[in-house]
Each structure stands twice: as structure tokens, then as C-alpha cells.
């Protein structure tokens, strides 16, 4: 049953040190404001799950929140590498970071299985690919009808899912529009969930065909954080801030400039700072 609270209350109630957390968003609707709140609360030892960890996970890793990352593509889209992620993997700064690496197909199937309440997913994958040799979580199974050998992967059932959506209504039902990614699966598969939204509305009138609606009884905490996906985008609200992604490449390259940025914009900031990004581009 969804409860409408403030962002700090929601993150505090939902997320504990050592949890597995999925902050999802496939380029679109990435929950940046909520990620910053996790940094402010100083959570430690998190297992960060996401198909495409980008800036917000780079920030969480550099800020020392993460013990492990489960992922399938880790980069700054259209720009290059994630310097904090790379520094953690290559140099162990600010601490050692374990990685569990999959393909997109594997993770998409693993989220699907999590939402479906299954312990694992079967897919046709990894043929001739070396990841299956270095990731012990990748196993295989034989089709009982055809004898075909297929890949399998454990379901993703995170302790907490944190996602951003366009709208909630007064009941706490959630509306996602546009590129919907794996957010539905991440929320349905998780034990607890926090959803930040652009706005709370009376009704979902005028919804287009690319929509996902989650009923309020599938969500634990709902928080209105206008602009909360910035520098990612919210379809129908504001565009992707491509310049920010390029700027991040500079800021994050160096440990000191990264830490100065986190201090100024995250530790001394708050969810209200995102509101100024919530303007149509």
C-alpha cells in the first residue's frame, strides 16, 4: 500500500545498509534525486543492480555506498566511461567493488522472472560468449522436450526498487509513459519500493499507448520530486540534459573534483534542487 511521504523518510524507511537495490531506468526516468538521498543518508555496502549503470551509480560508487554492482552495460551513454566505476574496479577506490556482469538479455529475463515470482529465467544466450566462464551465476539447463541446452540466470528480486515515474494519482497508483524499460519488473520483483514522481494528479486522463500503470498496492512509498530524473529525462516533462552527461565526464575523472561536486550538489543539496530542471526543454 503506497504511502505518500518525503524523500528522506521514504529512503530511510525502505533502504538499509547491505541491501540489494535496483534503481532502474533505461536512459529515461533515472531516479537521480533518490540516488542523491541515498548518498546523503550514508548507506553502505549496497549491492547496486541495474542493466545500464550510468551517472547516478557512478556517484553512489564514488561516494562509497556500494559493495557490489550487478550490471550489463556500464558507461556514460554517448560520452564514454564511468570514471568512478572504473576507478573502483581498477584501483579499489574508495573501496573494493565486486562486480557481477551479465548481458542485457540475461538481466531483462532476470527482472521478468523476478516479477513473475520465479527463482530463475531461461533464455537462449551466451553462446560462444566468455562471460559465462567468468560469472558463476550463469548456468545452463536442458529443455525437457527438445534437449536444447539453454542459458539460465537467477531472478532479480531486490530488497528495494527505486524508480522515477511521471505521475501518481491520489490513491498512489503510478503512471510511466514513453520508454518504460524494466521499471515495472524491478518494482514487482522487489520486496520494497520507492517511487518518485514528477507530479501527483487527480486522474490519468489522456494516457497514450506506451504506458505502464502500477496499482498503489504494489508500491510502498510515493514521493513527488519534480525534476527528480535530471539529468535523465521525463517524457512529456523535460528533455535529457546531454550537456550534463558531457560535463560529468570532466567532473568525475578526478577524485578531488568528484568529491567537491558531491559535497556541493549532493551533501549540501536536497530534492528541492531538482525542481528547476522540471521545465520543458
Amino acid at each position: 500500500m503506497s504511502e505518500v511521504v518525503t524523500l528522506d523518510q521514504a529512503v530511510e524507511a525502505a533502504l538499509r545498509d547491505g541491501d540489494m537495490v535496483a534503481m532502474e531506468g533505461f536512459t529515461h526516468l533515472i531516479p537521480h534525486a533518490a540516488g542523491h538521498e541515498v548518498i546523503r543518508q550514508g548507506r553502505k555496502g549496497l549491492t547496486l543492480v541495474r542493466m545500464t549503470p550510468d551517472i547516478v551509480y557512478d556517484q553512489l560508487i564514488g561516494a562509497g555506498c556500494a559493495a557490489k554492482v550487478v550490471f550489463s552495460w556500464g558507461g556514460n551513454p554517448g560520452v564514454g566511461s564511468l570514471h568512478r566505476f572504473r576507478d573502483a574496479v581498477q584501483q579499489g577506490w574508495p573501496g573494493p567493488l565486486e562486480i557481477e556482469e551479465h548481458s542485457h538479455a540475461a538481466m531483462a529475463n532476470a527482472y521478468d522472472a523476478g516479477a513473475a515470482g520465479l527463482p530463475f529465467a531461461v533464455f537462449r544466450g551466451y553462446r560462444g560468449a566468455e562471460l559465462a566462464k567468468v560469472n558463476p551465476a550463469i548456468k545452463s539447463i536442458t529443455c525437457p522436450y527438445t534437449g536444447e541446452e539453454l542459458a539460465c540466470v537467477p531472478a532479480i528480486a531486490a530488497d528495494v526498487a527505486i524508480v522515477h515515474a511521471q505521475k501518481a494519482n491520489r490513491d498512489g497508483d503510478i503512471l510511466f509513459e514513453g520508454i518504460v524499460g524494466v521499471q515495472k519488473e524491478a518494482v514487482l520483483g522487489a520486496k520494497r519500493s520507492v517511487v518518485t514522481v514528477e507530479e501527483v494528479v487527480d486522474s490519468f486522463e489522456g494516457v497514450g499507448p506506451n504506458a505502464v500503470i502500477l496499482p498503489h498496492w504494489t508500491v510502498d512509498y510515493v514521493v513527488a520530486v519534480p525534476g527528480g530524473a535530471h539529468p535523465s529525462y521525463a517524457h512529456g516533462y523535460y528533455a535529457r540534459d546531454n550537456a550534463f552527461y558531457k560535463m560529468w565526464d570532466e567532473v568525475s575523472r578526478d577524485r578531488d573534483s568528484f568529491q567537491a561536486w558531491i559535497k556541493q550538489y549532493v551533501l549540501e543539496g536536497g530534492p528541492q534542487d531538482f525542481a528547476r530542471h522540471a521545465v520543458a526543454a
Partner: protein
Amino acid sequence: MVDYTPAEMMSVTASRAVRKDDVCFVGIGLPSEACNLARLTHAPDLTLIYESGTLATKPTVLPLSIGDGELCETALTTVSVPEMFRYWLQGGRITVGFLGAAQLDRFGNINTTVVGDYANPKVRLPGGGGAPEIATSCGEIFIVMRQSRRGFVDKIDFVTSLGHGAGPGDRARLGVTTKGPTRLMTDLCVMEPDPETMEFTVTSIHPGVSRAEIEENTGWTVRYASDVTETPEPTRTELDALRDLKARTERAHRVPGKGEAAE
């Protein structure tokens, strides 16, 4: 005769490889440029699919990310990411997958994972993303990539995505029924697998490029088909379409006054 850059030659050549009825699984960067150029020239009804879930999208500018809003707004429909990988890619609906690589070997095997040892990497790359299954589930694979010794290596450090393995029959032995890499388009030439050895073989050289230049930029012993042709130059129409597309893209992605004052 028109003036063009090697990069333009590469994109135009890659765009020509696409047939008008193809259903293409498109990655960001060079593949996206080539596929959209094809759509703007000889293949207006080409179907473009991006792994973010956008089916049959017709962006007016090139996306910067795989999930730009433009892709969704111009798509016939958008599906969830699990559906994209399950029903559309694994379901065998894609005729051509476009891939790039950090490292590529002569059999079209691709590394986008690490340079050096996996557990102790010299350079940690972004990883495979959709590529391991794109490489095996699409009808065939086109690779588009700038030619260099750093990228075209004798032995890749990690096999992220299967090409032709160690040679003929390897895909079939792994239970893979699709064709794999059938065409490699670079800024210097076009290579295709030799039907006997499955090694990439130069079948067409771009105008003005020498064999020596190709060899200097390839980390394996370059082989040539018996009948190497000269790649046709870009036409005025192709170049105009490409330059317009890039100019439109440049303008669209320059959002003044944003991003500098970072959150």
C-alpha cells in the same frame, strides 16, 4: 567527383549494406548513423529497432543515447525492455544486427568488456550490453568500425560476442543457426568472411586507399579476395543526406544554457 572524409565513406558504405526490407537492431554511434542514412536514401521503409524498446522508429536526428525521447516519439510502438529481448530479439524477428567493437579479431569475434585480464583489467570497458545475444539471434551481423591496430587485433582479450569463433562450423557447433558477421565496413575497406576459412577478407577498397594502409592498420595478416573491387564513392545525394543529418543532430543536441550549472 565530390569531396568526402574517410568517416563519411565508412558511413555511406555501411548504409548501402542495408536492404530496404531489413529489420535492423541498431546501436548508438556509427550503426545508428549508417542505418538512418539508409532510411533517408535508398531504404525509406527500413525498420529500425533500438534496444530501449522502440519498434520501427524514424528519428529526425541521431539519438545520443539508446533511449532518447525522439526514438519513442517517432516509433510505431514502444515495448518494455524484457519484451524487446524476449519476443523481438530472441524471437528471431531481426534480420540485421549492427555491432561495433573495442577489439575485433579476424573471425569477427568482438570484445567490449575488458582490456587485459577479466579479474584484474588494464582497462575496464562498458561491457557487452545487448551484444552477446545480438551476435547470435539476428539473421546476420554487420560490423562498422574505424580500422586501427589497436582495434583490429590478432587475439582479443575477451570474447564478449561470438563471431565465427575459431573458424568454419564453430557457430553450428555452439547451436547457433544464424549467419553471424557477414560484412565489416571500415574507413578503409569492406571485408567479408571467406566462405572456406571464415576469416575476414578484403573484398572492396575505398578509393585512394592502399593495401599498405590497410595492413598498417590491421593486427592480423590481411587477406584479399581474388576479385577486390573499388568501393563506389559516395554520391552527392548520399553525402548531402548524411551531412544534413549530422548538422540537424548537432543543432538538436546543443541545448544552450543547460548542463553547465550542474545539479
